[in-house]
């Protein structure tokens, strides 16, 4: 346990290698990743850290920052925590400066992450409305169909499901979704 702890300390301390002026960028990059935005590229920092160091640094800092936000720590407490890792005051200051204005944003992201605990979640959906004007049997028919693309995020990665729905099927889908929404609202109310 103690060995793991010291390992973690070492990973955290890797940040001290970072030049001062790009430190906020690194911290914001980690925070962005927590929020599900653009990921920092190792390429930009290949002169500072080796790839292994970069991985260790990223995972340890990400969990550390998550912890700060999760426990809703005040600035003093954050600095105290960082003191335990024996990190210099300057870096502490920069970290808390980066963290403070984004508190709510990251908190929301974490809550969302917790909400998405089911094995598959809908990330995006896209739809196209098509009008069938004729077939090989019917010269003139007007039937609208909806092709619905669902981007589903699973533990193993993204999966795309495409379905084509007629008007009735779409209605059915919408009513079932509404019923689900109602259940959620009841749970909330």
């Amino acid at each position, binding site marked *: 346990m103690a060995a793991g702890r010291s390992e973690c300390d070492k990973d955290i301390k890797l940040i001290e290698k970072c030049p001062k002026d790009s430190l906020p960028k690194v911290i914001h990059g980690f925070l962005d990743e927590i929020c599900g935005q653009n990921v920092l590229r190792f390429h930009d920092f290949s002169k500072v850290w080796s790839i292994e160091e970069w991985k260790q640094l990223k995972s340890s800092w990400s969990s550390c920052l998550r912890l700060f936000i999760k426990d809703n720590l005040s600035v003093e407490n954050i600095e105290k925590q960082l003191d335990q890792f024996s990190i210099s005051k300057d870096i502490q200051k920069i970290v808390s400066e980066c963290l403070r204005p984004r508190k709510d944003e990251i908190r929301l992201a974490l809550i969302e992450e917790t909400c998405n605990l089911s094995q598959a979640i809908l990330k995006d959906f896209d739809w196209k409305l098509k009008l069938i004007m004729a077939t090989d049997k019917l010269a003139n028919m007007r039937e609208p169909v909806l092709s619905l693309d669902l*981007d589903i995020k699973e533990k193993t990665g993204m999966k795309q499901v495409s379905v084509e729905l007629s008007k009735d099927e779409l209605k059915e889908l919408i009513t079932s979704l509404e019923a689900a929404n109602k259940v959620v609202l009841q749970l909330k*109310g």
Partner: protein
Amino acid sequence: MEEVDNIIIHTLRQIGCNLNESVLSLKEFTTDNVIEATSTCLRVINDANQFSRTLPPSMSARFRLGTGLAQACQELGFNGVIGYQTFLYPTEGDIRTLFMFLVERLPKESAEAADEPMGGAILLNRRIASELSKILAGTWIPPFCKRSGICWSGKDGKTWHREGVKGVHPFRSSPLKYPKGLGDLTRKISKDAKQYYDSSAMPLITSQPPSRHNISDSILEANSLKVSSDMEWENEWNHSGLASGLTPEEYKAKKQERLLKKLSKNIQAEVQKANVESSRLNKQDFNEMIREISEQNVSAGHEHVGSRFTRSEKLQFTQDEEKELAAVAAMTENAGAKIDTEEEIQARRKEEIDAMQGRLTELTSRLEGLEIDMRKFTATVEQAQEQTEFLQRKNKEEEDAYKVRKRTADLLPDASNNIAKLETVVESSSTRLITLAKQWEEHRKPLIEQYREMKALNSTRLSEAQKKIEQIRNLREKMKETVEEVRNRDDLLKDLVTEYQNMVKDVNRSAYTKRILEIVANIKKQKNDIDKV
């Protein structure tokens, strides 16, 4: 006759005759004009009539064209005098009658279209048809010459359509970050927030999504997220928030508290359920586990024995090697005896295990019996305790009763005196009671009045509040309705504007009206004349 000419010229221009702007009346029509107008009219009336639109140079060709045109007109039912000379050497009167006839015969496309019910379906069909015909008319352009599949067309190059799926990309949104809470300019932004918004950690929204295509997707997603959450909140506030009479912050805090409580309750219940189940499983499993372990032991014992056996065998063989091959028979005997002893050991072990297991089961059954006994005993102890408590209570009651009786018995000897004393005591206490009641009444009256007043006030206030809430709700609804109405009106306005733009705005309206007025005046004149006669 000027109006007639105007109408004719306008119609001719509409069907695509290339008439000079300066041509204002039929008088100015040249032979070329006449030929072109007639052949266009004939073609519009019937597609089979294919006459040259221009005047051929040779005289014989001109003659043939003229007779052809004349014949076509006659076939259409033109009664007047007509021949090649009408076209080659036009006179104003002739061509006027001819064109009046032809213009009347033109297919009344626009009129028919107006009569048709212009349903959305038909309009859509027509739009699709026109779009398709436009695309068909255009030249094919290789995909790499079109930027994201867009093809520009039309004379002015302003209309476009999309070809193929090159410019199509899937909808992928990514979360965007943008400054929040800056709508209120009077509020000061905190320093570190400002620093964050200014820094490179807050790039432009256009550079935030991983791909350039997904900018609009992400913006749409962020916007719809905000709109839907706001709408949900407003709905809830209208429904239950307003009635609760709390400020939004208080209401939110309360809701959060309630939800947290509910969540924790649910989780606790689930955890308990899981615990109960697992403990039940444990109990069931315990016996099985013992059995399993014992079985494992048995099998391990076998293995153990087996391995020992093999080991001894090995030993045996090494010994064999040492002792040379001389006494093979004796040794095999010896080995057989050894095996026998091993088997005996095995059997003995088995017996032992069986005996042990028997004892174990016996012990467990005895333990169970003892446990049951213990439970019984504890139950009896509890019962006894209850009984003693009950008896103690009874005892106390009886003691009290005894005390009262004893005092009355003490008072009995000097009965009359004591009765008198008691009466005085009773009287004094009753008078005291009455005075107290009076005093109480005095105090009570104003208090009750005050209470009633307060109550009335409170109820009026409550009803007022209710009324106000109702009013607010009504106002909100009205607001929404008005907004909806405004939107509808806007839509209507737009529709009307487009309709107005689509309408044929010709100068001829005045011409038509003028003509109608003229006709009316003529009729009046005629009437007057008739009256005179």
